[in-house]
């Protein structure tokens, strides 16, 4: 049991709700320990008003002896000292004792409670068996005394009297009664809390509503609401306690904002007093009584109030184990305070706020460090780093204010300021006096000397940077680094400053932030100048001179820096090499001529468009482009398509570099793969050897990859964006121009490219020299190249008009590309003459000379001398790489037919006469390849050229027979597109003098139009015997239509006819059936075939296929066959058979066959075929082939088809065709098996061919079938 002190308890953590105890103090004291222990053991559910969520709460109580003074007086709203419950203890079991003293005492107690309106009370009656034993006499039943008390005091509130049985015994009954007592106490306590807190809150709200009334004081209200917060804290409801403070915070903030909006509250005046103390937050005490008193008295400044509020919030948050919220709120608070002071226009000594913020930051960090372990701290850097950075910032500005950053050290004015600032800190708080690292000591020390400041500032900066790095906020880390760099610059330590600046610059460049880039780069320039790093400084200056973010004056300044250095007199051998991209940009390159391919020695110009980034015009001593030379190994075809496309227009556009434009970051400009197809073709026949895909910009891609993969840039790279300048290769071939002035903006510069050696020239680098300074573009990309070629002279011949016709004089065009060869006077082309193609030299033949650009430069007559073997053409003198053209008339003689005999056609004729189609795919013209051999002056070898001529005609011949009479027909077709006049058509026989060919053609001249034919016919007449074989020559003259007689050219056609004489005549007759005048359909008729031998056998025939009969007569076997292909006739009985014919003139054989007409009308006779039958000669050696029958069948079938094909003499029977190409096996077979051989068309004459016979319909029925479909 503790005594209540006079002063209100504030150390709330030790506080508990007050419960008063009246009655038997001895009794209570004996039970106190158990009670105090047992009460908080079980949680109770606390149902809240205003819809707040119910909470489980462990109740504790501070039991104090009842005194009348403890009861709250009228109007006293203190909650902390409020007794929430009053208990009266008694163990009276004696009615007398009760009536005598206890009841009286209770009444007094009750009265005093009632006068103070304290309705929360309870009477506890303790029972024990010991007491009962002591007072046996006056013992009443237990219930009776309790009932008495209840009757006397608990008017309808029976629960206000509780019995506790045998409290000191360890029995289940005792336990039970304890439990019910505790439950009752807890319930009553909670009821009291609810009621009293509710009332308090209502009062508080009423007070808050009055805030618009004059005279309302925030500080008073603050104390009231804080009382509530204290009670919640007392009840360990920290969340609720925090809410009270947050509400106060918000209320105050709103007032400040309203003040800003012009709505002033009177009470705010005290907060607007000038700030005199900036000692920072104090978070080491649960309650800062000093500040609290200040608030209570209405004397607190804004910083005091804010500090006190925050310290309470901090305490509660740490109770709630939310330290990271503390740091977050701290940062917000500090920012907010600065803003609020500004808003309220509170006068503050310069730097005082910086001190306050600095101290506060460190205090918060210390507080957090005090309640977290190292691992937790490390894991939550992100929450603390803001405070570290803020503190760093503030210290830096303090240092600047107090002259601690300058190289010279603080002035006396600075020192005075320092003293004033330190005075505002006051004395160090007792809590931290003994701590070595207190924020107070740190600040004091830091402001005491330049060295100490530097140490503290660097510590803080590095700590902040490391934390930022640790949590991946690299940009923030770099910004701190930049700030550090500025510090170093002020201290004159340019080297360290540059490191930090470079790192920051790298990040700005890689992410494309142009303004920070410019700013940082300017700082770097300053460092580099201080450090005397000329090359780097010049490079940076050049970059800045082209930086559009800077003003023109600044740019001119930096440009002048470069030019001044460049113009310094001195050793010219040492040159500073800088990247060209900072100075000028190559935007376009144009070739003149555009094809970028010239013959060796020709003029090729390269026009560069350079965009100068400098703000002033710059005079260049030299501009040079280095060249890489590659010899083409005589293979000009090895060239990629991509390259051809690129230089097709002769213009290459370069995409702009990123450095100066500043739009996109370097990382976003990854060049795309540039792939080209490369084909390697054979130089001789242009066939594809290999094909490949090459990447043309590997050097760029690979380089980019390397630099991005290595995270740390090499330290000697001055600016991370510029490529390390590459020195120009000395001695290499170059395109050069001296003394050029580049104006700002686009400049056009023309260079002349070297073109002596044939090969490929690749432009590699560009270099600009300005005095001591060189600007180098290490890679020209996309790659630019031009070709210089050397060409062999080339002679071609082509027709002047397609197609060239054989047999007529035709013009052909000779084209000579001179290449590297200069045609001298006296040079001549020697054409070897051929018989098949004579050249007609004409006197008016002239030659044209064309320049490489196809312009006519000269024309001269050609002198052509023809000798027997050679035609010599003297050429006019022609310069190299010119074209010489002239035309000649040639005639291709049509080969006479002797080479085109019918039987030759199969062997070589197939190849020769295959029609070739050029412009007229439908017109088959036989082609002749005519080769020319020409000796040229530039080569020891002859040049072979070929021309293709086409024969305009096609010819065919045939032998026609009428009995013994013979006719020869020649068919001539004009297959060309030209119309001809045909004259003097003749046919002659070469060998037989006695033979006469009588022309049946009437016209001497006739028109033969394109794609039309002419037939010519001759009758053969002979005196003695008709020769077996005839050698004929067809000849005609032709000329293109409408040309005079002299233009007629001959055309010959040779051919041979064999087996000319007619051997047999076949006569057929059809007889109607007996008794009928005409044949009738469906009735059998007789067909009589009469085969007559017309001629005596010739010697050859006798030897060939005859055999001697038994009676000595020479006979030959014939086979006849009646076949009706059109199904007019039905052959009844045998349709074929063999007959033996005596080999003598007029030998006749008749065959009777029955046939039946199937239709009525004029029916053609059935076809009668006569074939040579060659019986088999028995052979012992070779067995008959099982296929032989098939072979036989196929033969006869073949013959049938032959019959249908017509009777052209030029087509021999297939059987004999087979025998021509037959092999040994076939010959053997043919001699063993009987064989059929057709006669040549002229050998058998059919009298009844195409003869018809009248067939009447069947007599008995006249049914006509009509089918309508």
């Amino acid at each position, binding site marked *: 049991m503790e005594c209540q002190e006079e002063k209100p308890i504030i150390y709330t953590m030790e506080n508990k709700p007050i419960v008063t105890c009246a009655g038997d103090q001895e009794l209570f004291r004996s039970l106190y320990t158990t009670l105090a222990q047992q009460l908080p053991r079980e949680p109770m559910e606390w149902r809240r008003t205003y819809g707040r969520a119910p909470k489980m709460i462990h109740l504790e109580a501070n039991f104090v002896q009842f005194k009348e003074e403890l009861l709250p007086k009228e109007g006293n709203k203190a909650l902390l000292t409020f007794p929430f419950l009053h208990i009266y203890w008694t163990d009276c079991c004696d009615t007398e004792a009760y009536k005598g003293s206890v009841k009286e005492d209770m009444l007094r107690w009750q009265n005093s409670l009632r006068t103070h309106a304290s309705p929360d009370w309870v009477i506890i009656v303790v029972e024990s068996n010991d007491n009962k034993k002591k007072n046996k006499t006056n013992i009443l039943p237990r219930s009776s005394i309790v009932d008495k008390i209840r009757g006397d005091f608990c008017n309808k509130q029976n629960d206000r009297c509780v019995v506790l049985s045998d409290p000191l015994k360890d029995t289940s009954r005792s336990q039970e009664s304890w439990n019910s007592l505790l439950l009752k106490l807890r319930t009553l306590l909670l009821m009291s809390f609810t009621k009293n807190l509710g009332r308090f809150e209502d009062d508080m709200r009423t007070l808050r509503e009055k805030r618009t009334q004059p005279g309302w004081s925030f500080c008073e209200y603050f104390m009231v609401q804080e009382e509530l917060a204290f009670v919640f804290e007392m009840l360990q409801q920290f969340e609720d306690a925090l809410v009270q403070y947050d509400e106060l915070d918000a209320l105050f903030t709103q007032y400040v*904002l309203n003040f*800003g909006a012009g709505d002033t509250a009177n009470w705010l005046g005290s907060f607007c007093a000038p700030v005199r103390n900036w000692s920072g937050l104090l978070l080491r005490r649960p309650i800062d009584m000093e500040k609290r008193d200040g608030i209570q008295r209405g004397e607190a400044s804004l910083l005091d109030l804010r500090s006190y509020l925050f310290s309470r919030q901090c305490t509660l948050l740490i109770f709630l184990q939310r330290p990271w919220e503390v740091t977050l709120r701290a*940062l*917000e608070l*500090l*920012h907010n305070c*600065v*803003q609020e002071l*500004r*808003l309220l226009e509170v006068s503050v000594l310069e730097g005082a706020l910086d001190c306050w913020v600095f101290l506060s930051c460190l205090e918060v960090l210390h507080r957090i460090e005090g309640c977290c372990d190292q691992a937790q701290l490390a894991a939550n850097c*992100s929450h603390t780093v*803001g405070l570290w950075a*803020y503190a760093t910032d503030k210290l830096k500005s303090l240092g600047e204010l107090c002259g601690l950053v300058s190289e010279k050290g603080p002035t006396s004015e600075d020192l005075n300021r320092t003293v004033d600032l330190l005075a505002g800190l006051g004395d160090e708080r007792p809590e931290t006096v003994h701590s070595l690292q207190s924020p107070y000591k740190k600040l004091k020390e830091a402001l005491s000397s330049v060295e100490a400041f530097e140490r503290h500032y660097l510590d803080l900066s590095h700590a902040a940077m490391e934390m*930022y790095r640790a*949590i*991946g*906020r*690299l*940009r*923030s880390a770099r*910004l701190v680094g930049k700030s550090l760099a500025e510090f170093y610059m002020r201290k004159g330590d340019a080297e360290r400053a540059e490191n930090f600046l470079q790192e920051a610059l790298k990040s*700005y460049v890689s*992410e*494309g*932030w142009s*303004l*920070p880039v410019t*700013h940082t780069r300017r700082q770097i320039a300053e460092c580099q100048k201080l450090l005397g790093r000329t090359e780097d400084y010049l490079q940076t200056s050049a970059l800045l001179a082209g930086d559009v973010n800077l003003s023109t004056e600044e740019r001119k300044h930096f440009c002048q820096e470069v030019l001044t250095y460049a113009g310094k007199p001195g050793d010219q051998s040492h040159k500073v090499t800088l990247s060209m991209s900072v100075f000028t940009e190559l935007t376009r390159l144009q070739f003149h001529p555009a094809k970028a391919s010239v013959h060796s020695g020709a003029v090729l110009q390269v026009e560069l468009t350079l965009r100068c980034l400098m703000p002033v015009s710059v005079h260049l001593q030299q501009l040079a482009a280095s060249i890489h030379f590659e010899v083409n190994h005589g293979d000009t075809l090895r060239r990629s398509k991509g390259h051809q496309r690129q230089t097709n227009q002769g213009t290459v556009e370069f995409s702009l570099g990123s450095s100066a434009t500043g*739009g*996109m*970051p370097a*990382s*976003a400009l990854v060049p795309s793969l540039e792939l080209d197809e490369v084909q390697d073709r054979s130089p001789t026949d242009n066939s594809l050897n290999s094909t490949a895909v090459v990447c043309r910009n590997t050097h760029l891609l690979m380089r980019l990859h390397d630099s991005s993969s290595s995270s740390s840039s090499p330290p000697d790279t001055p600016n991370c964006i510029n490529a390390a300048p590459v020195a120009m290769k000395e001695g290499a071939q170059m395109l050069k121009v001296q003394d050029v002035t580049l104006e700002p903006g686009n400049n056009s510069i023309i260079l002349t490219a070297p073109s002596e050696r044939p090969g490929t020239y690749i432009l590699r680098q560009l270099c600009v020299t300005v005095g001591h300074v060189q600007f180098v573009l290490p890679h020209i990309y996309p790659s630019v190249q031009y070709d210089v070629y050397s060409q062999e002279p080339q002679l071609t011949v082509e027709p002047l008009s397609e197609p060239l016709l054989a047999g007529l004089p035709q013009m052909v065009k000779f084209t000579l590309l001179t290449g590297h060869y200069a045609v001298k006077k006296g040079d001549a082309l020697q054409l070897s003459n051929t018989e098949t193609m004579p050249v007609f030299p004409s006197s008016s033949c002239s030659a044209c000379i064309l320049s490489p650009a196809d312009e006519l430069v000269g024309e001269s007559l050609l002198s052509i001398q023809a000798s027997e073997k050679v035609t010599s053409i003297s050429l006019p003198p022609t310069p190299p790489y010119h074209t010489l053209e002239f035309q000649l008339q040639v005639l291709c003689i049509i080969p006479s037919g002797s080479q085109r005999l019918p039987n030759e056609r199969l062997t070589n004729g197939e190849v020769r006469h295959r029609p070739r189609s050029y412009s007229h795919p439908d017109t088959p013209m036989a082609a002749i390849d005519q080769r020319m051999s020409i000796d040229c002056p530039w080569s020891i070898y002859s040049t072979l050229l070929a021309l293709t001529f086409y024969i305009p005609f096609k010819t065919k011949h045939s032998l026609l027979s009428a009995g013994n009479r013979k006719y020869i027909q020649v068919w001539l077709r004009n297959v060309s597109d030209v119309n001809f006049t045909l004259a003097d058509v003749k046919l002659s026989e070469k060998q037989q003098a006695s033979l006469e060919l009588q022309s049946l053609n009437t016209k001497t001249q006739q028109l033969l139009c394109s794609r039309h034919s002419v037939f010519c016919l001759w009758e053969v007449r002979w005196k003695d015997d008709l020769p077996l074989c005839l050698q004929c020559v067809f000849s005609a003259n032709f000329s293109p239509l409408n040309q005079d007689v002299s233009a007629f050219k001959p055309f010959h056609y040779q051919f041979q006819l064999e087996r000319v004489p007619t051997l047999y005549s076949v006569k057929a007759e059809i007889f109607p059936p007996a008794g009928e005048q005409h044949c009738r359909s469906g009735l059998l008729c007789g067909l009589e075939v009469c085969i007559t031998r017309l001629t005596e056998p010739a010697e050859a025939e006798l030897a060939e296929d005859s055999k001697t009969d038994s009676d000595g007569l020479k006979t030959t076997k014939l086979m006849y066959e009646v076949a009706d292909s059109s199904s007019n006739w039905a052959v009844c009985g045998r349709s074929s058979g063999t007959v033996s014919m005596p080999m003598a003139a007029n030998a006749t054989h008749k065959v009777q066959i029955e046939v039946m007409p199937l239709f009525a009308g004029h029916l053609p006779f059935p076809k009668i075929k006569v074939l040579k039958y060659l019986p088999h000669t028995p052979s012992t050696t070779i067995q008959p082939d099982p296929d032989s029958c098939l072979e036989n069948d196929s033969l006869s079938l073949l013959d049938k088809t032959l019959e249908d094909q017509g009777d052209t003499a030029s087509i021999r029977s297939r059987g004999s065709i087979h025998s021509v190409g037959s092999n040994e096996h076939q010959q053997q077979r043919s001699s063993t098996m009987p064989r059929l051989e057709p006669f040549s068309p002229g050998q058998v004459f059919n009298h009844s061919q195409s003869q018809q016979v009248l067939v009447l319909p069947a007599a008995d029925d006249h049914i006509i079938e009509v089918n309508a479909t």
Partner: protein
Amino acid sequence: WRVGIAVIAKENYPLYIRSVASQSELKFHYTVHTSLDVVEEKISAVGKSLGDQRELYLGLLYPTEDYKVYGYVTNSKVKFVIVVDSSNTSLRDNEIRSMFRKLHNSFTDVMCNPFHNPGDPIQSKAFDGIVSGMMVQTG
């Protein structure tokens, strides 16, 4: 400055950056650039927890003594940053949100322009107008 607005590409280079006062433009650039740290932090934190359906508005990125920096990130990882002077206490979170929404809409219009090459700095007059309007409204 009173207010500044920046649009930053996925690759973290500025597509559009504008502030009212020109004398503190440099500081504004530094601020926006530094704020990308927090933007990235927030994006990765949000990405982990919510997956696809994430809030585009990132809220207050970080406060400083002088100004507040708010962030917003589109689904294509283009970031919008609005920087407001700390003394401007009248701006509520909702207003900032609606500013971002407006910006996003206008930005989408810019991207829909077939003649605009995504990744190029924004030079649209319409977008500029929207931004100017906001600056007048809040500044």
